[in-house]
């Protein structure tokens, strides 16, 4: 697919309202711009110059990955991944010299935000990043946030395992599965959302936007490139930190941390996920099946057996 077919000129976006600033990008709300097949509000993520030149065709390939999905999968996909929908360029989109400024993505739904009562008396509305899940009950209470119970945590792990398995089944390496890129919600049902999806890559292709490893989520060999296996390492670590919150968990201490939380099978899965040998790490599908078998009824539902 030619990248021009999924590119839009900056001036066509209409009004932009600043939402947030990050180290790599600035995000704006787009109240006037819509896309025909996407029925939700959109944002414009503008790359800072530190990101360097981003190749348009590479981004177009990521956009194409979503468009290639069957309609029913894409409906589900759109509610679980903030994926690039269009490339934003500075001038004539048809010109080969148009410069990539950023991407258009969907706005993160309200349910994935939390209101943090701030110390200055004003409360702050921020995305519910997964690092909140790693904190213990006292810490959460101090932050004024609800502490998810075991059943909710289990379901969050299950949803994350499914999401990673879905990407891997499409041959997509997420890359930076970190505490900041995974958002969660508890209401109405526990679920996760992956953001910053423009740094993904298709197996066999180079990354378009640099895939960095977030500190504290490095696989054993620091220079292990981002791959399906490094995704699986991070998934294992994530699951441990969600199910055993409030402790400092390192790859070395992870198995110990879950010994009183998971059964023998689960502990073995953790050990294998965090192995220094990338080939030893179990597939996300394996994690999904294990978590599914232990999930019981949905925590927010009337148990169907009653």
């Amino acid at each position, binding site marked *: 697919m030619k990248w021009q077919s999924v590119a839009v000129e900056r001036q066509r976006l209409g009004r932009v309202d600043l939402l947030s600033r990050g180290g790599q990008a600035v995000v704006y709300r787009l109240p006037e711009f819509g896309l025909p097949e996407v*029925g*939700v509000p959109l944002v414009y993520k503008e790359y800072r110059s530190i990101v360097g030149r981003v190749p348009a065709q590479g981004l177009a390939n990521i956009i194409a990955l979503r468009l290639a999905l*069957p309609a*029913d*999968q894409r*409906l*589900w996909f759109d*509610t679980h991944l903030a994926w690039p929908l269009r490339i934003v360029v500075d001038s004539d989109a048809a010109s080969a010299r148009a410069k990539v400024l950023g991407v258009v993505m969907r706005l993160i739904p*309200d*349910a994935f935000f939390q209101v943090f009562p701030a110390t200055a008396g004003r409360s702050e509305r921020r995305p519910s990043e997964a690092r909140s899940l790693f904190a213990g009950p006292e810490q959460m209470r101090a932050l004024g946030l609800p502490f998810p119970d075991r059943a909710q945590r289990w379901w969050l792990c299950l949803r994350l395992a*499914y999401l990673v*398995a*879905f990407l*891997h*089944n499409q041959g997509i390496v997420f890359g930076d599965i970190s505490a900041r890129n995974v958002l969660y919600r508890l*209401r*109405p*049902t526990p*679920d996760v959302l992956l953001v910053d999806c423009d740094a993904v890559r298709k197996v066999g292709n180079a990354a378009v936007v640099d895939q960095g490893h977030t500190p504290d989520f490095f696989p054993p060999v620091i220079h292990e490139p981002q791959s399906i296996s490094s995704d699986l390492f991070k998934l294992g670590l994530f699951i441990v930190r969600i199910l055993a919150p409030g402790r400092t968990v390192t790859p070395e201490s992870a198995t110990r941390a879950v010994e009183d939380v998971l059964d023998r099978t689960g502990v073995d899965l953790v050990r294998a996920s965090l192995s220094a040998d990338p080939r030893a790490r179990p597939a*996300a*599908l394996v994690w*999904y*099946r294990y978590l599914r078998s232990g999930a019981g009824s*949905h925590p*927010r*539902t*009337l148990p*169907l057996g009653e």
Partner: protein
Amino acid sequence: MYPADTHPRTTLIPFYLVVDVSQSMDGPRLDTANLILQRIGEALARDSVAAARVRVGMIDFAGGSRTVLPLCDLLTTTTFPQLACRDDGTRYAPAFNLLRATVDRDRRQLAADGFTVGRPGVFFLSDGEPFDDPPGAWEEAFATLLRECPTTPHIIPCAVADSNPEIMRALAHPAPTTPLFIQSRLASPESAIRNLTEIIVRSVVTSGHQEMVVIDETDVHALDTVIVDPPESWIDPDVRY
């Protein structure tokens, strides 16, 4: 008569309320359900953008199924019809059959009027188990609805009182993204229907703005939300389409 071809075709989102009027609904449950159309109308009267893009209709069912309100612009409807109970059992098959015929006929009529018709939204409210006869009848009618509707509607099941959660869950369509609302353990059927009314009103208005069915789940207090899990086939490399 027809909108000028130079104007972009307006997209309309049809909404159908399919409501159980079997004997058990008699009383506060039906009284609460009878306020739904009015509440939607009030919200649309305050929001001309949404009002221009949605149409609402209502179907009831007990032993058989009837059209209570043909699909229309609620702002041009002077009086809202009232649902009334019937004491002839509870069957889902007639409701699905009527819904299928109605969705298709309405779509063709609106298209002939020059509108682009979006995928409809259906809120299906029941307070008890179906006793279709012969057994398997509702399952077949439901499968036919999904198979033969050129634009299959989003079906949002709403289960209160003694409805069967397993059956209601099976009606959510498309399954992995459409919620099922079930009355919360400590809530009454009336408060569940009231909460449902709020959800329906907000969803209809939001859908009008976004030109597609959007379910607004922001305030779910007398109901639990169930999302059907996406299928394992989507993540299994051994499954090929």
